[in-house]
């Protein structure tokens, strides 16, 4: 059964290339608790500190907290981008991540070429990628622009393309940053419909967001992060009221 299990999950970012010792001293002197010096005398930022939680199939988890609380870092860790320095993480199920939709996009290539490239990034065969291209082209509503280099797209068009590319998948564990819920109004209705289907088909949703309306609408459980720690974990209303 798809599930996520984190036990004492810890992520630290060493600040490399920092240079002078005096700078280091100054940083540590004014340390806002999250900067510390590790055994090797490096300044490290504690991004996630000792997180333990379990997500069962069917759960729709929202990660909330201020900027820099560790929401996106946690998403990336769940996706397998960052390897934890402490603790244990277990994710069962096919992961689909909607974190940065533009990653791996080549602006000099056409929309269609980008779709095929994205297919390769995902490990699809070339034939499957080509098939995906038609699906994405249709959904994004880019029409003839699909064969024009992405560089010449408007910002809105790029968003549509990224969104359409990113959502052609059937993951069991869906990791999503709130970026995906922003977009131009006309496209938004269509996008939400698509997301709703994606979320409904996935066994687990983990969504990082600032928007409490979205949390109430989409999620069943909330984890509130503060400075890299879990400060609240529970059903939506309970956590949101407590704040």
């Amino acid at each position: 059964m798809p599930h996520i299990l984190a036990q004492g999950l810890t992520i630290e970012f060493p600040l490399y290339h920092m240079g002078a010792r005096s700078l280091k001293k100054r940083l540590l002197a004014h340390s806002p608790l999250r900067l510390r010096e590790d055994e090797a005398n490096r300044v490290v930022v504690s991004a996630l500190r000792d997180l333990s939680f379990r997500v069962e199939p069917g759960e729709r988890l929202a990660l909330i907290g201020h900027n820099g609380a560790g929401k996106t870092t946690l998403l990336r860790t769940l996706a397998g981008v960052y390897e934890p320095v402490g603790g244990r993480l277990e994710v069962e199920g096919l992961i689909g991540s909607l974190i940065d939709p533009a990653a791996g996009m080549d602006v000099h290539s056409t929309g269609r070429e980008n779709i095929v490239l994205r297919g390769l990034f995902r490990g699809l065969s070339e034939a499957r990628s080509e098939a995906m291209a038609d699906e994405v082209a249709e959904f994004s509503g880019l029409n003839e622009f699909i064969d024009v280099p992405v560089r010449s797209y408007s910002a809105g068009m790029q968003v549509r393309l990224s969104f359409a590319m990113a959502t052609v998948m059937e993951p069991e564990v869906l990791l999503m940053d709130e970026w995906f819920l922003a977009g131009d109004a006309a496209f938004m209705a269509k996008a939400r419909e698509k997301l709703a289907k994606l979320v409904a088909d996935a066994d687990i949703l983990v969504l990082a967001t600032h928007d409490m309306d979205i949390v109430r609408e989409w999620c069943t459980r909330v984890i509130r992060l503060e400075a890299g720690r879990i400060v609240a974990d529970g059903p939506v209303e309970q956590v949101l009221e407590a704040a």
Partner: protein
Amino acid sequence: MLAVGGGPVYSAPMLDETLPRRAPAPIYVCDAAQPRRREAALEDIATGLRRWRLPMALARLDIRNRYRGSVLGPFWLTLSTAVMVVGLGLLYSSLFKMELSQYLPFIAVSLIIWNLISQVVGDACTSLTSAEGIIRQMPLPFSVHVLRSVFRNVLTAAHSLPLILVVFLVCGTMPGPEVVLILPGLVLVAVNAFFLSLFLGMVCARFRDIAQIVASVMQLAFFMSPVLWKPELLEDRAKWLPLNPFYTVMETVRGPLVEGGVSAIVWTSAILYTLLTGAVALAFFIRFRGRIAFWV
């Protein structure tokens, strides 16, 4: 990512349709107390190789974008190599008092292989840092980025191959049947390129000064290795040449083409150096693979 479903994997299971669909759900386990680094690293390389189409597509994009809008494209490199070959050929054949028709094939093959080596090494320093945007967003095998850098340079170098044929035809020299020996030579160059790109990619991501050091080492190596000059010119001191890894690895390809074969000592040295590069690169990769995402 394992080909068989069920067992734990040590890199995150991205949607990967080269695996059976809806097989038993992949489990991504990452435990800081039991890092299982070796499995993760070997799996990374195996997955990168299995999905070679991705780095190949990226490499071709890189070349296309680099020469976007240019009429000759990557053939500019062929042209500049051709000019170099003719220019250096004329100059050094008279400096070394050699027949031009004998020296020209040598310098043509030398320069093309050296260009490949020095560009691979130069790009190796940025093989991972240049993929920063992807590394921090997508759990892809790191070997994909390394292969991208290697493929890009191999494809670029391939544009200069016709030049060798032209020079051979003009000078009326053709290699004998020993030319098939360039195949193991090319394999050796490819293996070295991969491990060197992996190793330098990691080291340069962590320590940003290394790239500068590598650049100056390569410049020195160009003059210290028999690229322009023939090994025989060293006379009895030529016996020390097999200690130079650039020379021996290059010679495994150049020898069969222009010198009628390669001596056993050169092969031994080239293989030993390759094993050494491979071992060091692998050891590093196994130990520090998990840190790369933090370094870039």
